[in-house]
Structure formats: C-alpha cells, structure tokens
C-alpha cells in the first residue's frame, strides 16, 4: 500500500492489468503488470536450486547439480511516476519492446529497457479542467501495425491514432462513433455509454468494444457505424435506477475473444457469463457452477458450439431481478490464445472452461 503524498490518496497494491510479453522461452516469460500508478516488468520462470558437492582432493571447486525447480517471479524493472491519474490501459507493441500505458487523460509510450523515460503520445488534458467532458477508458496497440494505437473513451467513442504522423498524437487519425445506435438521452445514457473494454481483433481488422449494455464490433475501415451491435444483458435496461443506486452502473466488465474469432465471452451479475457467437445467433448464458469436490473445485467443463446441451455442471443462467446477486460480478475474463479454454473470474474464484470435443 503506497501513499501519494501530493494528493493525499492511498495507492492500493491491487494489480489491475497483466500483459504477457512475447516471445518467451520454454522456461521463462516476461510480463507487465500495473496498479493505479506504477507499472512493473517481471520475469516469470523456473528457478533451479543448486546443490554443490565437493570431491575432496580432486578440485577446489565443487560440482553443481540442479535440484528442485520452482516457479518464481522476479521484478525486473519498475516504471514509476508516469501517471498523474489512475492507469486504465496497458499494451505491448508488435515490436515487442515498447508499450503504452493510459490513464484518464494521457497515454505514455515506454521502452521495456528504459524505466526513466516515457514519451507522451496522447494528451487530452484541457487548458481549463472545468471544460473536461471526456476521459480515456483504455488503450491498445494494433496487433501487427506498430504505428497504430486505439483508445476508448467515456463517451463511447473509439479513436485510432497513428504514431507515424506526429510526435504528439492528440489529433487522432480516425474516430468511431455509433451515432445511430447510441443510447437515447436519459439520465443514465452517458454513464452506460462509457466503454469499459476495447480490443483489436486478432486479425487487426476490427475493434470490439463493450459498454455497460452492449457489445459493438467495428470495422476499422468504417467509422460511421459498427458492423454489429450485440445487446449483452439488455434485461438490465429496466433496472438502471436500481443499478445506479447500488453503484453497479459503474461496474466495468471486460470481455475476451476466442482465438478463431468466432465467440466472445463476457461476464455479468450473479457470477454468470455469456458466450456470444460473433456471426450471429443466440447468446448462451451460464451460471458459474458450484465446484466439484473431487477435482479440487476449480474446473468446470462446458459443451458448446455444435451441441447446445450444456454439461451437468453448467446451469443455464436466466436473469431474475428478485434473486439475482448483484454483488457477485464476473468482471474479468480471458481466453487462451491458442485453444478453446477461457477463464472467468467470479467472486473469489477463477473458473476455467474448455470445449469438449464432441457430445
């Protein structure tokens, strides 16, 4: 727990983002992590315990044997003091050496080998803070174009900037705004339009965003409207005042995309999650099952795709406003980059699911 002396605010030790670096080796990988203010580069890998044996009379130097292997994480570098506001985005560049970090108003460009310098690439701070109407909610680099970066905003907009154009990218190259599909003006419309997660697709042609109620898929070539608008848990729409009173309306849910880009998974309340087929079709919602005692509790399996019958553990989820547990929020999920395994975090558990081969 740190204390920011300038603002008299405690900085929690809570890690908000983790990003893996590529490439790695068989025994070592590096990753970036951040809390609200500081980013750290770690090495994670196997560490051998050495054992030395002396053979008296033969040599002064011992022989070394490798024994226990355990996995250790070692901090390599700390990138501190780059942000005046809470960090909300962290993303590695395709050059595998530089990365960006974003907070409410600014985006910094760092090099993994240099903890003392960062370059400001986007600065949204207005000259007069009272004019502030929009903040950054996340940022990501394009998967293979080293010069493109995308950042999402509290107004539901996505901007793409080109680092080649200028040293300071305030003037974005493109902005994606869903004017037709935007929320009708209401007390809550601004709050629920804020983008809680935005990512490039693996192929780099699309950007997928999630705000409180809707998933949108944007084609980078078309700024005027998304190619798909997928209501996520639209049944919450009639409960917005309750959600506002309980502060739930400020929850930031993220999402994850399958490696073949056919499915998107995202969490909702009651510890449930929804699988959305990208090409269209009925989204399937499931309650995170109760752990099976024998398997140590954390693995479930789900059969989906070809057969719509879920396995015994997975309960389909139907929202019931009376019994729904709004304190159990599945805010975070992630999909393995190589296979059909995905993870959903719900209350104090992480649940892993993978596709069964046939049913």
């Amino acid at each position, binding site marked *: 727990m740190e204390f920011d002396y300038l603002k008299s605010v405690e900085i929690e030790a809570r890690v908000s983002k983790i990003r893996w670096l590529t490439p790695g080796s068989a025994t070592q990988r590096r990753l970036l992590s951040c809390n609200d203010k500081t980013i750290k580069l770690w090495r994670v890998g196997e560490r051998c315990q050495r054992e030395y044996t*002396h053979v*008296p009379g033969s*040599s002064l130097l011992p022989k070394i044997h490798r024994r226990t292997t355990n996995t250790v994480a070692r901090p*390599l570098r700390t990138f501190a003091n780059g942000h005046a506001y809470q960090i909300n985005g962290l993303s590695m560049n395709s050059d*595998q050496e530089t990365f960006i970090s974003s907070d409410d108003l600014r985006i910094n460009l760092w090099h993994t080998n240099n903890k003392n310098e960062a370059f400001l690439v986007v600065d949204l701070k207005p000259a007069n803070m009272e004019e502030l109407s929009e903040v950054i909610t996340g940022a990501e680099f394009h998967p293979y174009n080293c010069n493109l970066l995308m950042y999402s905003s509290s107004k539901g907009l996505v901007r793409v900037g*080109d680092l*080649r154009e200028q*040293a300071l990218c305030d003037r974005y190259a493109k902005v994606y705004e869903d004017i037709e599909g935007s929320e009708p003006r209401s007390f809550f419309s601004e709050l629920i339009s804020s983008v809680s997660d935005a990512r490039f697709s693996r192929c780099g042609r699309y950007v997928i965003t999630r705000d409180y109620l809707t998933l949108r898929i944007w084609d980078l070539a078309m700024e005027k409207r998304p190619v798909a608008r997928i209501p996520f848990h639209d049944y919450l729409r009639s409960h917005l005042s309750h959600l506002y009173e309980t502060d739930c309306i400020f929850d930031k849910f993220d999402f994850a995309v399958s490696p073949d880009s056919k499915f998107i998974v995202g969490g909702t309340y009651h510890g449930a999650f929804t699988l959305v087929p990208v090409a269209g079709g009925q989204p399937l919602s499931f309650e995170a099952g109760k752990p099976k005692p024998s398997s140590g509790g954390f693995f479930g399996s789900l059969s989906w795709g070809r057969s719509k019958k879920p396995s015994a553990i997975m309960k389909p989820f139907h929202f019931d406003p009376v019994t729904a547990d709004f304190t159990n929020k599945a805010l975070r999920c992630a999909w393995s980059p190589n296979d059909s395994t995905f993870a959903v975090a719900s209350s104090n558990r992480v649940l892993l699911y993978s596709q069964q081969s046939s049913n």
Partner: protein
Amino acid sequence: MAEAKPGDENYPITVLIEELKNEDIQLRLNAIRRLGTIAKALGVDKTRADLIPFLNECLDDEDEVLMALAEELGNFVEHVGGAPYAHVLLQPLESLAAVEETVVRDKAVEAILKVAEHIPNESFEVAFLPMLKRLSTGDWFTPRSSACGLYALVYPRISDGAKPDLRQLYGKLCNDDTPMVRRAAASNFKKFVVTVDKAQIKSEMIPIFQTLARDDQDSVRLLAVENCIAIASKLDREDTVSLMLPVVHACVNDKSWRVRYMVADQFSNVCNVFGQDIARSELVGLFVKLLKDSEAEVRTAAASKVTGVALMLEVDTVIKQLLPCVHDLVTDDSQHARASLASDIMGLAPLLGKDLTSTHLLELFLQLLKDDFPEVRLNIISKLDKVTKVIGIDTLAQHLMPAIVELAEDRQWRVRLAIIDYIPLLAAELGVEFFNDKLSNLCMTWLGDSVYSIREAATQNLKRLTEVFGVEWAQNNIIPKVLALSSHNNYLYRMTVLFAISVLSKVVGPDVVNDTMLPLLVKMAQDPVPNIRFNVCKTLQAMIPNLDSTVVQARVKPVLSKLLEDKDQDVRYFGQQAWLMCN
C-alpha cells in the same frame, strides 16, 4: 566442503569459492569480481580444467552477476594460458550471449570481441565460425540478436571460402520473424557491410538492405539512413546515385516522422557521402522539404544541420533556397525548432561573407535575440564569435545589451546561470570599454543573487574576466567593488566576498593579495558571525600554497593563532586545518 583453515595456502580461494555459492547476491558479485585472483591461485591448468567448467554451470544467476561474469571473462585470456587457449572462454561467453537480459548479452558480445583480439588468425576460423553459426540459428531470439554484433569482427578474419555462407546467414537475420532480431541486424549492418567487397555489396548486401529499408516496423526502417551512408562510402559515385539515392528519397518521404527525423539528423553526412554534385542537384530539394516538415521534431533536427548542408552548396543556392526556410524557422511555432536553428545559424555568416550577412542574416539574428524562449537567445549568444569575426561587433552590440540584461534577470535561475557562463566570451568580443560601461554592474549584482549557484558562478566569472582583461583592470575595476561588499549587513554577501577572494587570489598576483586581500581577511577574522570567521580560515587555507612563506609566517599565522582559540568550535577546527598547512 573441502577442509581449509586460515593458515592454508588455499584458504583465500576457498573463501572466495564459498562466496560464489552464497545465497547473498552481493557476496556472489564480490567473488565474481575477484575471479582473476582465484584463477591466478589455481594456475592456468586448473583454471582451464576446473574453473571454466564450473563457471559454465553458473549461468542461471541474476543479471548483475552474469554481467560481472561476462566482463571478467573478457579479461581472462592470460588466466587460461594466453592466446593458444583463449578459445575456451568462448563456451561460457556463448551461453551468456544467449540469455534474456539485453545488458548481459551486450557485455558478453563485448567480451567475445575482446577475447577475439587474442586469438591468432590460424585458429580464428575454427574457434569462431561454428559459434557464430550456432548463435545465428539459435531457437530463441536472444542468441540471434547477439550474433548480429559479431559479424563485423568475424567476417574479415575468415577464409574466402567461408564468406558466402556468412553473408547468407546475415541475410536470414535481416529477414527474421522477430522484430528485435531484425533491429539488431539493421543496427549492426553498417559495421558489417564495410567489411564486404564491393562486388558482393552490390549483388547481395544491397538487396538485403533494401528489404530492411522497407520493413514494416518503424524501428527497423529508421536505421536505413545510417546504413545507406555506410554502403555509399564503399561504392563508386555512379552506383551510389543509382542504388542509394532512391533510398534517401524514400526516407524523406516516409510516413513515419521518426524515419524522416533520422534523415534530417544525418543530412550533413548524407551530403558528404554523395558528394557536392548530387548535393547541389538533388539533395538540396530534399533538405528543404525536411526544413518545412509538418512534424516539429523533424524541423528541429534539420535546423541543426543548415550550416553543414550549406557548406556543400553555392552561395546563390543558399540564399535562394535555404534562406526562405530559415526565415520561416525563425518564427516557427516550436521553441525547440527555433532554439535548434539559433545554435546553428551563426555558422552561415562566414559562408556568406560580410555584405551578404548584413543584408540577409543580421535581421534574423536580431529577431532570434528577442525570442520569448530563453534557450533561443542563449544559443545565439553562445555562437556570437562566428558572426563578429565577419561583421564586427558594433552592429550587434546595441542589440545585445537588452537581450543580455533580460536573460540576466530571468526568473529561472538556470537561465541566469547560463548567461553568466557566456560573459567572458562576450567581454572578449565587446572589449573593455563596453564592458565597463554596461556589463560590470551586472557582474556585481550577481554576486548578491538569492541563489547560491549564481553567486558561486559569479565569483568564477570574475576570475575568468581577470584572465581576459588582465590584473590591472581587475585591480582598478573589480577588487574595490568586491571589497566594498565586505561591510554589507547581510552575512551572505560578506561570505561571497570570501569566496571571491579565494578564487581571485589565484589570478591577481602577489601584490594585490598582500596589499589588499590579506588586510581584509585579517579584518574579517573578527566578524561577529562564526560562519564568516571559519570561512576566513578556509580561504586562508586555500591561499597558503600560493603565498610566500615569509608572508605566511608574518601575517597569516598571527591571524590563525587567534582563531585557534575562538569560542566557536567550528572556527577552532578550521583554524587547526589551516594552521597545519602553514608548516
């Protein structure tokens, strides 16, 4: 653990070896740094047979330890028995060149290069070629990156028969999947290519270079210019124009400002390597484009190269093509572009000569001298001598004063500090009368600045002025004013006098010291403030080496003897220190 006791001849080494195994990283580091000692004690045979294999097993340690190890191994040739055995060091170094952390790999490559110097030519190929091939084809990106740094060394020393393979391998590295390897290959390209024969450069290296120059990754592309310059230095004029000039064109027109920045930064070198004719016919147009670039960083880099490029052009071209851009840069939005221009533009004066400088450049200098941004003004002042040699000081003098005064009174102390630095230069240019008239008051005001660094710089300034104008001048102009400060109410001003005396005593000569300074010091030894009194001691201590011993005995010691019994303990302490110097 082998039994060893303090009496044993092996004891020191066993202790060191224990440290090598210790969990505490500081102890391991310590031991690694003393590896030479261990090796000497073991002797060359045992070092080769026992120590090196042991070290080979130690390569999974912390980065700091590995860095130190790489460094030690670079100096280990004598410990393993000299040149015939130097190659045994390559085994651990090869492994170190493949580890994850860049700084360790860099040290390992450095060490390999050092060891290579000792390996005789006959055994070089056998020792190095297989290792280089292994590194270049390693599974992970790290050995492949490190390999790039070794080609320039290895290639010239191997047999001609082995060279085609190596060139091909390097080409593969330039096309590697991993951007980091391509980047290492691109940045080492310029060192490697100059070792290759012209014919092969044309047939093999240039195509490789062209793919690098078109790489997707900006960080690879921006290394193209330096490589271009290296290649051009090996080709003849015709080939340079047909093969390299298009690359320069492409870089100047690149979408990424970073690539354009690199060209701008290297533009003088580009002009030099392509030669005057090309510079005049083609390159000047490209340079103008860079001076007008949309990105301020590019304009800033280009602005610093104006003189360098102008040197290759005809005066007429400079006036017709470069000066309009320079004109625009004087009022550029970016203060960094203006500052960069200011530090370079003065160099045009000798080129254009007196009349043209007066007509075309003078107004630009004056405008920059009035810039809002202090660094711009400072940069003009710093290069003043280039201009005054051409058009004399008078025209500038009247404009200089307001600029200097404004800088001298700037709110930011670092700006005030910077202008003080230039005062001796200006004094030399402007001459004694001008100085006495206008600048000397300024120099005295600085002695009383609220910031210590300014007061200190001001005293150093007085010393340098004395060196410029001579002792007599100092005696008549500075010393009286400095000494007058000694009776100021505020003790900080009185302190400044002491520092000034300490500094000036070195340059004013014994008469002034004996007649004016020492009496003052005697008086200040009775100052009511203890800080003053002990600084008198310190000043005397600094002066004693330059004083005649009779003077020391007759005049310094009496003062000090009183201070030895001062009621303040710091005064007594410094008095003691000074007293010791007297004897």
